[in-house]
């Protein structure tokens, strides 16, 4: 009689745990983050969508996620998400409107988009010819930029390397090629950048971009002092704030938070997770990253594996 009540409570807890819905729990974490850190709710929604097999729940999360991709102009993700969950999304005719936004933001025509996107979506080595044909015909750097980001998002890096190889420099800037090498962590990256920087006709912006990419590559490979030098040179040549931000991140991943935050006032930059983390960390009122971001950063780390996310996680 005396132990009846505790047993009842224990059984209730067990029942509760049986009923616990992990997908919903992850969604709830994401929804809580959405109010103040919308960008960081995206990884959690993605994870919760993968974890659920309930169509009603999937409809809710997929639709919400769709609009978050759109809000943060994550167009490659938006397009892939749409193709995957089209039947579940309750968005009316909003997708057409989203494509219009995409075309406006990338400065491409909708005709070019609708010509390129189907082949880009299927992109394999058989389709490369078609992609090259469209890109060559249009001679549009902007269309290439869209294709570049889409293929990087879909991890079709070899296909992209081939496309860039065949395209003339008037369309495919060498900086894009170097960027791909950095993304692929190619061992020839430094050599290619050095060769590029030896060119005489380069503008300061082009030099700055190359040095920025060099810094990224060095940082990625643990050469922090050289990376810092590269970012400093980059910021001197063209984009001061970009160099400062990257130096800040470099200091954070070395654990030198105070120095990083004393470098300057970082802008919020709603579209970049790493820039937002730096902004939050160096916010004078808190000087720390809220613990509720931990799950989201963990997921980001799993998908992108950057040293900066690793460093942020150690702070949480």
């Amino acid at each position, binding site marked *: 009689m005396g132990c009846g009540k505790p047993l009842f409570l224990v059984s209730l807890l067990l029942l509760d745990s049986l*009923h616990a*819905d992990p997908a*919903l729990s992850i*969604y*709830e974490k994401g*929804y809580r983050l*959405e*109010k103040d850190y*919308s960008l960081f709710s995206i990884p959690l929604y993605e994870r919760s969508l993968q974890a659920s097999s309930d169509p*009603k*729940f999937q*409809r*809710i*999360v997929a*639709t*919400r996620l*769709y*609009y*978050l991709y*759109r*809000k943060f*102009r994550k167009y490659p993700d938006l397009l892939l998400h749409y193709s995957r969950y089209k039947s579940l999304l*309750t*968005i*009316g005719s*909003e997708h057409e409107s989203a494509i219009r*936004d995409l075309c406006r*933001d*990338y*400065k491409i025509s909708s005709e070019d988009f609708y010509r390129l996107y189907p082949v880009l979506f299927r992109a394999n080595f058989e389709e490369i010819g078609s992609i090259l044909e469209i890109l060559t015909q249009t001679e549009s750097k902007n269309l290439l*930029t869209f294709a570049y*980001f889409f293929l*990087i998002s879909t991890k079709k890096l070899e296909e992209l390397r081939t496309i860039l190889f065949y395209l003339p420099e008037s369309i495919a800037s060498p*900086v*894009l090629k170097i*960027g791909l090498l*950095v*993304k692929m962590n190619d061992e020839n990256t430094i050599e290619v950048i050095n060769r590029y920087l030896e060119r005489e006709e380069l503008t300061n912006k082009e030099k700055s*971009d190359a040095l*920025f*990419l060099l810094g*990224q590559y060095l940082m990625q490979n643990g050469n922090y002092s050289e990376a810092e030098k590269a970012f400093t040179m980059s910021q001197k040549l063209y*984009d001061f704030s*970009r160099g400062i931000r990257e130096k800040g991140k470099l200091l954070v991943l070395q654990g030198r938070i105070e120095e990083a935050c004393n470098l300057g006032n970082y802008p*919020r*930059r*709603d*579209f*970049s997770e*790493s820039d937002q983390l730096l902004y939050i960390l160096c916010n004078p009122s808190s000087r720390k990253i809220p613990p509720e971001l931990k799950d989201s950063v963990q997921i980001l780390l799993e998908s992108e594996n*950057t040293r900066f996310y690793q460093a942020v996680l150690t702070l949480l």
Partner: protein
Amino acid sequence: MNASLSLKRFVCPHCKKKSRLPQPVPESGLFLITCAFCGGKTLIRFDNHEYCIEKPISRNVGSFSDEQQVDSKKRNPLGPRQFQTKGRTFFRSLRERVQQLNASNQRWDPPKRRVPPREKVFLRLGSIFWICLFLLTVMVVAFAYLGTGILQTKSELSAMLTDLSKSKPTKIIDRNGQVLSEIFQKRISTLKLSDYPEHMITALLNVEDKNFYSHGGVDLKALTRAAFTNLLHMKYKQGASTITQQLARIMLNDRKKSLARKWKELELALALETYLSKDEILEYYMNHVYLGHGAYGFGEAIKFYFHKNPSEITRTEAFLLASLASAPNRNSPLRNPETSRERLEAIFRSMKERGILTDIPRNEINEIYTGFATRSPNETVFGNRQETSPYITESVRIFLNHFTENINIYEQGGFLIETTIQKDIQKNLESLVSSYLQTIQKNGTVKKTYLRKNTPELPREVLALKSLISDSSLAIELSSGMDFSKIDSSVPDTLQSAIIGLNPNTGEILFLHGGDKFHSQNQYNRAIQMRRQTGSSIKPILYAAAINSGVLTTADRILDAPLIYRGVQGLPNWTPDNHSKSYEGEISLRYALVKSKNTAAVQVAEKLGTSNLDFYFSMFFFPDKIEKSRRFRNDLSLALGSLEFSPLEMASAYSAFLNEGKIFRPYLIRRIIHPDGHIIYESGKQDEFQLGVPQERVVVSPDTAEVMLSLLKDSAKSSSVFRSGYRGSVAGKTGTTNDYRDAWFIGLKPGLSLAVWIGFDNPRYGMGPGGMGGRIAAPLWGEIAKLADRELSSPGKDFPKYSHAVPGKICPNLKSNCGDCPPGMEWFTRDNLKLDSCTFTEYERDSRKEVLQELF
């Protein structure tokens, strides 16, 4: 002279005849016996059942004739019981007096006499003489005055008794002095005393005046007892008015508590006693005493309360009616059943203690009150009155029921009640609404739809809403709105509408419509008394709260996307959907309100948080804490209109947006003027509709009110207001509840805040998919607005220009339909004109300049 008691008679020393001795013959003691033949009194001593005549008493002292006894018996409906009681009291008191006399004689020890000086004796005697003379003079003057008064009253008595059966109507007039209706309050009983059953009269006399047949109009004994009781409690606890005095009061029709009125009442009571028989007094009283709900006299009351003939009422029912005479409103079994029942049971207990009843008939009492529970507290004897403004009259009547105790407009009549109503609109309202409701039913827009019962399967939405509420008692309350078992199936269910229009700048009610055809089964004033869920029409309150508190501005964006909230205690999850089941992503606050996005409203409520919600709902609807504790549930479902409000409350809340954020308490009665011309009530003195709100309150700032007005203008444009042909200014919001049970449109136009509700009384019925606020309530709003423009000759008037809100730039490319903003701008409150950086513009700049940033 001793005599044997076996004879049981004695020889009267006055007439020498043998007269009866009292039965049973007393064992011992001294008794004053009256001769049965000559009425002469004789003092007889009894000793061991034998008697001897002590002393014959002179015949003109303390005579008590048999004739008087017989007459008393004949008149007294209480019968022999009371007489026997009096006889016993008489014997006992005499015996006690003699014993006291004997005892005092034994103890009496005469004081030693000290002979005062002759002068002192004369002086003392002189003082006593003068005091006695003074008192005598006062008494003589008072009696002379009283006598003159009685004589004078006699001449007026006939006319007064004739007037008693007449009554002047109380007039209800509109704001321009046009008569709306007249209240003929009196429906007087015209029965003879013999038509009333014996137990009705017995009950009345026992409750109101048990010595009626033995006093002369004033019961001195009762008066002394009441005075003592009231003095003991230092407040008015007990009255001592006899039935004759009460009749005099009814005839005087003056309830002022003054000495002059009391004196006049006394004169009239004594005059009545002098010139009318006891039976006549009782008959007048029983036919004219007010017994509540417009019933005058027991005949009318029996019909009203029990639907019976006088001969059919039971003893318990008779006692209940008798209990009403002293306080008909307070003891009304319809209006205050608990108070009435307590009073009745107290009477029964008293009757039992006095030996008149042997037990309290509890079963019968239960049955009677169960019957009353099904009737409206506001029911009156005038069930089927036909008039142009029945709901106005009924609202006035309800107010008068709660009006100050010193003036009973029901009893008196002749009052003038000035209302705020605009008769020109009011008189056409009923026919307009009736015709409109017929049209939308005939053309199939509204299809009466039987909805499934709430048990055992509750709609998922209800379950989900319940799951949001941790307090289960509240959950039960929430679902009680759909408890079909409480609905009286005998009442035919027709499509109903409730309309109320008020002046936002004053709170004056300009017109109202309480429902389809006012009749005895349909006196429910839906515009004021009915509370229903409001659907989306509550959203402006939420948005106003968000803007006023600075939680959101018109530049803010909300993600219109589906939501899910975990169900608790095994209940389903709550997934608030948009009505269209479609979502549009990031939208502006304006667009969210215009398109009535449910997901946005829930998120606005979330952003506001419980403390802000609590604060603003208290400001708008529940300044009274008790009212709030009864009706307010602080959960997210309130964002979708789960709380229940009356059309009056909604029209009043919206009026803030047209009145610089201020709400004036709504009122219908401007003034009440006494028949003698003086004003006895002016607006603002009382909370007429018992809303528990102050006379005026500021709920939001003036700039918030203007921002809201701008939002509501666009919201109204997307409804079907203009389908009615109305072309004037409008700002408002539609509302539709689950299963199309309620359709709302609350709208503003210059000088008017107008709420329109359409639905069935019985929530078992919905109106089908056509029964949406925007589709049926908004066009009716337009029709009424047209009527108002026509009657007031004020079409084309526009809203005043904003003088508090300020325009500010907003980010481009946002879904926003601002109709009255400068291009590319929005209206802001002065405190919140701070824009976040436009992330869209920033993105465009970044995407051109920093392609590489997207890589890392």
